[in-house]
């Protein structure tokens, strides 16, 4: 793959539901380059999850052009160019941890030894050693989400799509998984498109934060996050972090999305500013 080529390219993408009564997305132009970590942030109803699904060819856009890995979104999906993680871990109760991780490999008809080698690597990567034979309901929410991430990475897709993956987790688990995700992202070298409604999370994780406005969903602006890599717990205490958070908030406000912001994010912002 050409290093210059973008992994995702959206041109004038729009989406209408119910025969044009609801305009979910309008005029979306977005380019994601290899190795980038892009967060889509915005209040509920801004169409960020819809946008992610359009990239994954799980929803068809009403207009515009979608190019993933230099192909149509459909071809990219068929070629398994992306792995996806949802807010719910979407694990299969009848499968153990290792079998859940191996599911995409089974559909790709990898042979058994290759499969179990790869699963072992992934179990190490997401730090679930010793839980291979457990069933999903025996795991905490954070552990379930790690299984889901391992499953998405199993076939080494160049692109990782994440739809509010940590939205249902408690604050502490969320921060730990944020750190782990950064480590995994750096190790795997994949490109990530990450949907969230937490400002602090978006700034902490991303190389670029794309701010969206609601009804119809539009891109208000992009904040380039120039915080040094690798990032750690201290990153949130840096003055630059607070500045970037403020910038994202300002964009959200101009987009008219601020009144629906969740209180949880407010708290995080205050903590970040005070430096805990």
């Amino acid at each position, binding site marked *: 793959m050409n290093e210059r080529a973008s992994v995702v390219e959206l041109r004038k993408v729009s989406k209408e539901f119910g025969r044009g009564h609801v305009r979910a997305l309008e005029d979306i132009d977005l380019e994601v380059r290899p190795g980038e970590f892009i967060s889509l942030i915005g209040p509920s109803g801004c169409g960020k999850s819809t946008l992610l*699904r359009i990239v994954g060819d799980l929803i068809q856009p009403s207009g515009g052009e979608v190019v993933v890995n230099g192909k149509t979104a459909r071809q990219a999906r068929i070629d*398994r160019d992306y792995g996806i993680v949802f807010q719910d871990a*979407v694990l*299969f109760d*009848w499968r*153990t941890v290792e079998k859940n991780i191996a*599911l995409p490999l089974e*559909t790709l008809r990898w042979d058994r030894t290759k499969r179990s080698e790869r699963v072992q690597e992934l179990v190490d990567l997401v730090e679930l050693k010793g839980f291979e034979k457990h069933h999903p309901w025996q795991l905490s929410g954070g552990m379930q989400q790690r299984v889901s991430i391992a499953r998405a990475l199993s076939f080494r897709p160049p692109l990782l799509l994440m739809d509010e993956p940590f939205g249902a987790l408690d604050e502490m688990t969320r921060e730990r998984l944020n750190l782990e995700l950064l480590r995994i992202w750096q190790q795997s070298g994949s490109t990530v498109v990450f949907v969230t409604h937490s400002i602090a999370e978006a700034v902490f994780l991303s190389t670029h934060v794309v701010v969206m406005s609601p009804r119809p969903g539009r891109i208000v602006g992009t904040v380039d996050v120039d915080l040094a890599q690798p990032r750690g717990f201290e990153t949130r205490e840096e003055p630059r972090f607070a500045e970037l958070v403020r910038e994202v908030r300002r964009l959200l406000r101009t987009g008219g999305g601020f009144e629906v912001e969740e209180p949880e994010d407010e708290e995080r912002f205050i903590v970040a500013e005070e430096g805990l």
Partner: protein
Amino acid sequence: MSTTVVEPIPRGTLGARVGRSLWDWFPAVVVFVAGIALWEGLVRGLDVQNFLLPPPSDIARTLWTERDTLWGAAWFTFQEAVGGWVLGCSAGILAAMLFARWPPLAAALLPFAIAANAVPIIAFAPITNNWFGALNQTSKMVIAAVLCFFPVLINTIRGLTSVRPQQIELMRSYAAGQLTVFRRVRFPNALPFIFTGLKVATVLAMIGAIVGDYFGGSQDALGIQIRRQAGVFAFTEAWAAIVAASILGILFYVAVAAVERLTMGWLPSTGGPAE
């Protein structure tokens, strides 16, 4: 499945588990023994006529003395029930798979299946006897099969179609075909529902077989035994036959439940979806 209570199966040594489950059964055993004792006491104390209600001790004695005819007949009827169960359940699962795969087919036929489910199918027993021959087991198998068909059909359809949309989206992201989605998602998801149907069907199959017998058939059949003994005021014998039928019915149910347990060791709760 969101209504299923998540409660892990306790892990421990086999001895501890058996011991624990014996203790779990203790209240039920007490009630059973007390019930039998009360029955015996009331029948003897109030001098209830034998044709109204024989005492349990008499029934137990008859069960033993008449064991050859009784168990022969019970086995004969049990075969009818199992045969009908296999037939009806297979047809139910197969039809459900077709309906789940082609929704227009379900839209066209399912209303009739539901309407037919409300028909007292057992009323057709004399007619199936007429169609398939009263003396052979086939006619009873057919009525048992028809009784089993609907609960299995309805439960299987529910299981196959109650898949979470995100599970389907996930499979779509792997570019998985219909067959893969069925094999990896829909069918395993439906298993608890299917087993619920299969368990209900064991009871219905026994009812179908015995009532089928009532409308005529081989003298070796349990239903015939019950009807004939009651007809000649041999009520203790009739009761003994009923007890034999109950024992086989319970064993049938327990056997299917055991297979369910073995198949679905992964299931967090002991049962499946609410029955």
